[in-house]
């Protein structure tokens, strides 16, 4: 099944084809479950004018935040941002654009893109700035707004275990946006903590079937903790 072996040997190969102006869907929530090595590779490549669709934009020196240093990000589509000073600065200077999207709507937009659903109705955001300019329709007497799917030229994903065919499972809450991101990229790249042989993952326990995945690379993660809080 060589045609299904998606393992690539270098980060360069993993992100090959990414170019200026593209849209990238990224998994992760805060610094949890982010594809650290793929983000580092994008920084190394120096690709510019990127749009990132990701719940957050990392912190100053970690996660997507590191792409701010060389002004590689043109636009963020996120639910919560601004955990770092550089972000605020570029936002205020107009170098960076932000499209704030409710967290659940963001997750559903990614899923919809992967699932061939161009748009869906949700009550989330109706009557708020998020609903402005969007189509409204009532169902059972309640108003809903129409939200459109969001897809990417690339999707970058962190998995716990991935097999060579691209089947993935995620660990604990590092799952978060990763499964939806995986479905929403024209090219989906998975950075895995461990690459295993096909058959090692129980078929009905696979979170992301390999059909969504184009490339798999063995990662090496720092796994930084954003807010370490301990029991008293």
């Amino acid at each position, binding site marked *: 099944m060589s045609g299904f072996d998606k393992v690539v040997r270098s980060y360069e190969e993993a992100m090959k084809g990414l170019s200026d102006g593209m849209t990238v869907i990224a998994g992760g929530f805060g610094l949890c479950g982010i594809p650290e090595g793929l983000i580092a590779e994008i920084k190394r490549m120096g690709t510019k004018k990127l749009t990132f669709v990701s719940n957050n934009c990392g912190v100053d020196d970690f996660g997507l935040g590191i792409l701010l240093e060389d002004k590689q990000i043109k636009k963020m589509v996120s639910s919560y941002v601004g955990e770092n000073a550089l972000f605020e600065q570029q936002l205020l200077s107009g170098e960076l654009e932000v499209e704030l999207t*409710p967290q659940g709507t963001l997750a559903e937009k990614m899923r919809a893109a992967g699932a061939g659903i161009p748009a869906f109705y949700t009550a989330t955001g109706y009557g708020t700035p998020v609903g402005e300019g969007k189509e409204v329709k009532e169902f059972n007497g309640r108003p809903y707004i129409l939200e459109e799917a969001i897809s990417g030229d690339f999707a970058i994903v962190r998995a716990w275990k991935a097999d060579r065919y691209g089947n993935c499972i995620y660990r*604990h809450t*590092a799952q*978060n946006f990763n499964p939806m991101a995986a479905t929403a990229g024209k090219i989906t790249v998975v950075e895995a903590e461990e690459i295993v042989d096909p058959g090692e993952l129980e078929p009905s326990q696979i979170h992301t079937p390999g059909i969504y995945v184009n490339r798999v690379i063995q990662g090496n993660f720092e796994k*930084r903790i*954003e807010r370490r809080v301990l029991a008293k």
Partner: protein
Amino acid sequence: MALTRDQIAMRVAREFKDGDYVNLGIGIPTLAANYVPDNIAVMLQSENGLLGMGPYPTEEEVDADMINAGKETVTAITGASIFNSAESFAMIRGGHVDFTVLGAFEVDVHGNIASWMIPNKLVKGMGGAMDLVAGAKNIIVTMTHADKHGNSKLLANCTLPLTGVNCITRIITDLAVLSVADGAFHLTERAPGVSIEEIQAKTAGKLIVPDHVPEM
């Protein structure tokens, strides 16, 4: 006397029923988990994909892959489930979470809430708040009755950009418990020693005061 943050949280916890699934926002709402009565159990939902959130971890339990919606390290209880963000918000948006408790800048007599954005201050985003207020069956807003300048946060009409419309039915402040219905706030309880006059003075929106208002 106005309630402390912990006292507000204590009062919030009395709203829960055995078997409730609850999402607690950051701040006072999170404190409510500490005051769940011994004879009932609630299960905490964290919108980053965890149902059955447990206490903060010990040093040994800390795991970068196990965090809550506030990005804090956390644990899972026995019987927890973990899922992706779309599933987590399906749960919220679909009305399966029984209670959402969250803070607010303002609430008005129409049940509108403003909690995420103050113009001319840096906007960090709404996170999951808009989904939560659109989806939960019961929402409790916790906040101080007035801001530090004494301005009421219970208004005839919210002035800040909204988080959700026509969704708030219950408010627990440092001074009172109120319900929201028919274009008015309805006072149902007052903090011990707090006068109805003080509550009236600090409630800008229409307030309906019944003959008897018990202390909490």
